[in-house]
């Protein structure tokens, strides 16, 4: 590992390419061909960069770190106070950004193929969604984390608003209100951490933290509370889950793929930051655990009540965020690996389900299980994809959901909390019920509409099937060879547990 690279070439590109692409796309606005070329080329470039890049740091603006003795250094492995903003690109970041950029490519392709006119602004917002996710997962600086979360939430509001329907406008307004709230909360947490330690860089802040001073430690408790508030918000955990479900349910299904990827990455990133900064405080892990258990339980129960496939998926995404945070908040190596792996798998199998949902949206002209039925006859491959996605989501081998859930169950048993294992099991069983309620009604129930010909929707873009096939391939690949992904996640988990001050 090249730990001491402090000017890794690839890191700025992950941010600058989406920014330039977004500006260009927004100016192009309605020129379809130029938009497609720009968007596809930029997202391909992001995939290539994420694969080729080695691991290391980037200190933006080239300022050195100040050694405790007073000199300056450019070496990242020496103890020093960073003057510059620090990003870290490691194995966890690599797999996260690689997946996000692949999904970005798919989403962009589908958006180009299925939307009418004026797509420039919308696709530029999709690029910015990717950018905010990349910022949050790579950054090692509390100040920058705050900016990343804020720009991310404004972009989410924009992506939702692009549908132009009343439901999405309401969802966006509510979501922005909470973005205001949690942004202010994160700013207060930043103020408190700065006041206590004087450093915004997370590594430096951990080293400078006055844990011995009881009166100052109480400042950290409040900072912890505000950070958890923004964590809950960014990841859509309980009790903000109804809003997040609104957002997921009212955006286009293909946009929801990117939104949930962004939210999962934020969940992982902020969760790891909380563990690193506040993991030693009493009650920190307990608070995080109870948030995750509540989220899982409420999300999955609410998913069962929904009568629209989009909303079922929205609540399931929320409840599976609880699985991710469960692993992270256990705070053990196995738990964190399970949580991170669950995040990766979740992004993939939920994308399969969401793409299937998009297909239903075209075929059935809607996704309500009351009005849409008998799709399997017209689109058998869509049904197969949806069923595979459902199997993966409910943890059936040989799909990827199984591998991560079994790690989570083992981790919670080893932690001494068999109840958590039961909760994980119940979540996967209930996921199965909720999904098959929808899938049965939409795909398998005989078509009871009198004029079936009239109900025929438009043909599904062929691109959607290609993307589905690729995602199902990843699902099975990770299900059969989980080590492919776990090898990327080990390092991050070990660092968080044993050397939290190293990003």
């Amino acid at each position, binding site marked *: 590992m090249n730990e001491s690279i402090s000017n890794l070439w690839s890191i700025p590109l992950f941010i600058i390419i989406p920014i330039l692409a977004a500006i260009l796309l927004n100016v192009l606005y309605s020129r379809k061909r130029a938009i497609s070329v720009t968007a596809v080329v930029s997202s391909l470039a992001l995939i290539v960069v994420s694969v080729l890049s080695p691991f290391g740091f980037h200190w933006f603006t080239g300022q050195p770190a100040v050694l405790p003795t007073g000199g300056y250094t450019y070496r990242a492995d020496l103890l020093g106070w960073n003057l510059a903003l620090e990003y870290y690109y490691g194995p966890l970041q690599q797999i996260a950004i690689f997946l996000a950029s692949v999904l970005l490519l798919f989403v962009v392709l589908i958006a180009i193929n299925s939307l009418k006119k004026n797509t420039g602004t919308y696709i530029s917002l999709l690029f910015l969604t990717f950018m905010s996710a990349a910022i949050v997962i790579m950054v090692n600086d509390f*100040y920058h984390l*705050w*900016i990343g979360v*804020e720009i991310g939430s*404004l972009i989410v*509001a*924009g992506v939702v*608003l692009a549908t132009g329907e*009343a*439901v999405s*406008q*309401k969802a*966006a*307004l*509510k979501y*922005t*209100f909470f*973005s*205001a*709230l949690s*942004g*202010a909360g994160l*700013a*207060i947490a*930043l*103020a408190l951490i*700065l*006041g206590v330690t*004087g450093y*915004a860089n997370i590594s430096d802040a951990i080293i400078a933290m006055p844990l011995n001073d009881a009166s100052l430690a109480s400042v950290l408790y409040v900072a912890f509370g505000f950070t958890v508030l923004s964590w809950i918000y960014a990841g859509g955990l309980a009790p903000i889950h*109804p809003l997040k479900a609104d957002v997921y*349910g009212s955006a286009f299904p293909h946009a929801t793929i990117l939104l949930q990827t962004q939210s999962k990455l934020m969940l992982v990133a902020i969760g790891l930051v909380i563990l690193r900064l506040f993991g030693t405080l009493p009650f920190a892990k307990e608070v995080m655990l109870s948030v995750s258990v509540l989220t899982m339980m409420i999300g999955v129960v609410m998913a069962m009540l*929904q*009568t*629209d496939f*989009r*909303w079922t998926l929205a609540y399931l995404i929320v409840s599976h965020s609880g699985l991710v945070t469960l692993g992270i908040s256990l705070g053990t190596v196995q738990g964190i690996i399970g949580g991170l792996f669950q995040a990766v798998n979740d992004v993939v199998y939920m994308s399969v389900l969401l793409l299937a949902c998009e297909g239903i949206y075209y075929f059935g002209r809607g996704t*309500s299980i009351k009005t849409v039925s008998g799709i399997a006859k017209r689109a058998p491959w869509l049904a197969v994809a949806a069923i595979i996605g459902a199997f993966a989501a409910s943890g059936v081998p040989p799909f990827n959901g199984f591998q991560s859930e079994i790690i989570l169950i083992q981790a919670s048993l080893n932690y001494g909390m068999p109840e958590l294992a039961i909760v994980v099991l119940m979540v996967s069983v209930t996921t199965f019920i909720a999904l098959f309620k929808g899938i049965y009604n939409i795909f398998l129930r005989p078509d009871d509409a009198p004029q079936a010909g009239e109900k025929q929707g438009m043909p599904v873009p062929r691109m959607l099937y290609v993307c589905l096939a690729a995602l199902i391939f990843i699902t099975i690949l990770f299900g059969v060879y989980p080590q492919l992904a776990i090898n990327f996640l080990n390092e991050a988990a070990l660092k968080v547990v044993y050397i939290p001050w190293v990003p």
Partner: protein
Amino acid sequence: MIELNLQFLSFMAAAVLVVIGLGGMLFLDNLIKKIIAFTLLSDGVNLALVTLGYVEGGIVSILEPGTSGAAFPTNAVLIFGPGIVLTNIVIGVSTTAVLVAVTMVLYQRYGTLKASKVLKGERK
């Protein structure tokens, strides 16, 4: 006895502003009033951040002819707080713009600004 000083008062005012903002967002039903409450909240955060940079007998962090370059690091205000305030102002402006824009659109649609009417929960 707590000694009353400038920093103490500013921190106290910041806490009061933050809680008034939170309370306003919680208790007021009018969407525009909620947005105003948010700006109060954000101002409270700004005040806390500015106060963080306070240095007893400090000077503004601009080098003017005649000041001492060696004494500047200890005398000048802490740079991080005021810098973050700039960011917070920008974020506040953008968030407020989005909130107001969507509120305008929803007002066109429903003809009311009441959050309990416009933004009541609904399921499909």
